[in-house]
């Protein structure tokens, strides 16, 4: 079992204790990791995050020369990138970032860490470093306050996910035209920063109780652009069928756009707004069913959304007959075309018969003519 402290933890133990039939858990190397995080807030809303890790054992002895441990930390890069992103966002999958420097052992770096002796921050030489540049405009931590001012909440995700873990050192720097306007930290009993000036905030956290869970900053950052690639989702409510017997409404949704997407179908009736989620490929359609609470004859509304945008909507009356939706019109048009074709066909047949009749007259006439 791997025990990482100040950081991640005994997820292995947690899981094994939940599995009812597990009897033995094979132990692996136990170690703790000192964590220092440097964050440089730059123009245009970029944050350059350097995570420095130094492993040590329960007695406080450095394990930086233990290749197995160091390699394990280095090979866990993907997890640590996700954890870094979670300091700034609740959904890493929607966050833009660049790994500026992959995990590597840097003997010139050092990590400060409390190893259990109260009030003592020890210095460990050497660190596994990982550098990630985060585009804050794609995170959930950045809230625009106006006039280039933003509130940024940096959450100690290690503490959030495991109450025993914390960041030993949080070093926040503000470079370029970025200005620190205000800051705070919670919970209220968290210790204040050791260094607090216009360009730097430095927290040295001796233990989890002292360490802030959230670092709340108000910054002036010029040049932040909230850009995103908007999918052009298009869909229509192509049909709706009400069944009085089963008190349900079937709604057919068609993706009429060129992008695959998740659509939300909404039925509004009798005080209820009900929504169903459906993923559709381009050109694909599907039926979704809703329980209906309104009586027959009542008007309801069916809408389809792609993200926050309403793509289509129809008001319809709950009747057993299908609501007046586009396919019904199509069938009527189809019938009309059929009728026209049938009439044209009949006309052609009549013309043919007429021709035959004329032909018949022409061939018969000479026999009655009396030549002079």
């Amino acid at each position, binding site marked *: 079992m791997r025990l990482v402290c100040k950081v991640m933890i005994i997820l292995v133990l947690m899981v094994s204790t939940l599995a009812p039939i597990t009897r033995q858990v094979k132990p692996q190397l136990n170690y703790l990791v000192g964590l220092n995080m440097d964050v440089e807030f730059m123009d245009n809303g970029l944050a350059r995050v350097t995570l420095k890790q130094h492993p040590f054992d329960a007695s406080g002895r450095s394990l930086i020369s233990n290749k197995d441990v160091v390699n394990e930390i280095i090979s866990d890069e993907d997890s640590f990138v996700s954890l870094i992103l979670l300091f700034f966002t609740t959904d890493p999958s929607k966050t833009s970032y660049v790994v500026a420097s992959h995990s590597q052992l840097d003997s010139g770096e050092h990590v400060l860490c409390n190893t259990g002796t109260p009030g003592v921050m020890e210095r460990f030489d050497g660190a596994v470093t990982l550098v990630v540049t985060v585009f804050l405009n794609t995170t959930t931590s950045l809230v625009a306050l106006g006039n280039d001012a933003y509130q940024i909440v940096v959450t100690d995700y290690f503490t959030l996910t495991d109450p025993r873990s914390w960041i030993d050192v949080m070093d926040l720097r503000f470079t370029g035209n970025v200005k620190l306007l205000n800051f705070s930290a919670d919970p209220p009993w968290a210790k204040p920063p050791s260094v607090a000036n216009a360009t730097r905030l430095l927290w040295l956290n001796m233990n989890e109780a002292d360490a802030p869970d959230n670092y709340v900053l108000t910054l002036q950052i010029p040049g932040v652009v909230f850009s995103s690639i908007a999918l052009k989702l298009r869909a229509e409510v192509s049909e709706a069928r009400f069944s009085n017997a089963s008190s349900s409404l079937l709604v057919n949704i068609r993706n009429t756009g060129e992008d695959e997407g998740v659509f939300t179908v909404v039925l509004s009736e009798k005080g209820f707004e009900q929504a169903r989620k459906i993923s559709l490929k381009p050109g694909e359609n599907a039926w979704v069913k*809703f*329980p209906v609470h309104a009586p027959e004859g009542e008007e309801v509304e069916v809408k389809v959304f792609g993200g926050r945008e309403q793509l289509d909507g129809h008001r319809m009356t709950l009747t057993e007959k299908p609501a007046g939706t586009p396919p019904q019109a199509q069938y009527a048009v189809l019938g009309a075309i059929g009728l026209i074709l049938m009439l*044209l066909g009949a006309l052609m047949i009549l013309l043919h018969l007429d021709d035959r009749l004329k032909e018949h007259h022409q061939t018969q006439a000479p026999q009655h003519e009396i030549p002079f």
Partner: protein
Amino acid sequence: MPGEKLVAGLVLTTIGVALILFSFSVKSVETQPSQDNYQIASREVRVEYLEKRNYTYMLTQSFLLRNPSNNTVVDLVYMWLPVNATSQSVRLVESNIEPLYRKSGEDGATILVYNLSLPSGRTLWLNATLQVTVEKYRLLMENIPWLDRSQVEENTGGKRYWAVENQTYVSIARSIGLDARDPVEACSSIGKWILERLDYQPTLRKGAEHALVARGGRLTVSGDCEEVADVFVTLARILGIRSRVAHGLYLLEDKDFVTMWIKRTETGYNVSDNWGGHAWPQIYVPQAGWVDVELLEGETVKIGDFSQYHVKYGFEEKSFMGSTMLYCQAMYLETDSFYFAFRRVQS
């Protein structure tokens, strides 16, 4: 040629008649009322307790802490308590050591934090006694509406263990739940689908994505209670149902006094035969609150049919990486033994 008009006329007439017949046939199929038209189903939302009974336990949880280092260690020790939640109430009766403070985990777990000092090699028992009242219930739920749009958009996304964007899961969810009339029916279909494919194997948590295994051309759900819960939550969320995982203990024995334990050994951990670490899914029904779903009690799908043997320690809903629930852990001190003694005092 004189025959051309006849041929064209016949072709046009045939096509025309075919189109007319087709358009009529489609309309007649669609306008055909259901065969069970003679009995109109009720439309009222109905949430009713068919059974509701409280069971109270006095729970003493005891943890043996040890200082493995060569120095005296001052450490913060975290003890997880059962949570106050829908169908469960908890009161801390006493603790042998005064906690420093009480804190909440990411998804509302209740944690007592102790500040302990322990000399090198020494051990210490940390105990807490709690009164836990668990509600056994059976719910009748009819005509439950689907959630509104804001709930669907905010609470049915993916997490580390819930791969809601995985196309295999999307396609499974469509095939088993899209034509469900209401969320309870959809959850019932999900539960049946899982049980029909379950290959129960105790395992480390691997999440929904890795729990689905193709064997002999058939998909199986491989894993234990956590995989069952993760697969359920994933499929439910794809269908727009707010769902989460509950963690806790399950009393495998119906006795007045039950003790279960885990002990650290030199090679790993031993657990008692009746060890009941458990996880199960829940769904959110606005008219009823969080409703428990149990798929591993009697090999049947139980939605809102909850036994008195479940004790909830925490939930996992918002946490992206999954919640950590360790019963009792410290940073530097080791926890060598975990004891949970349940005494049934009232039912």
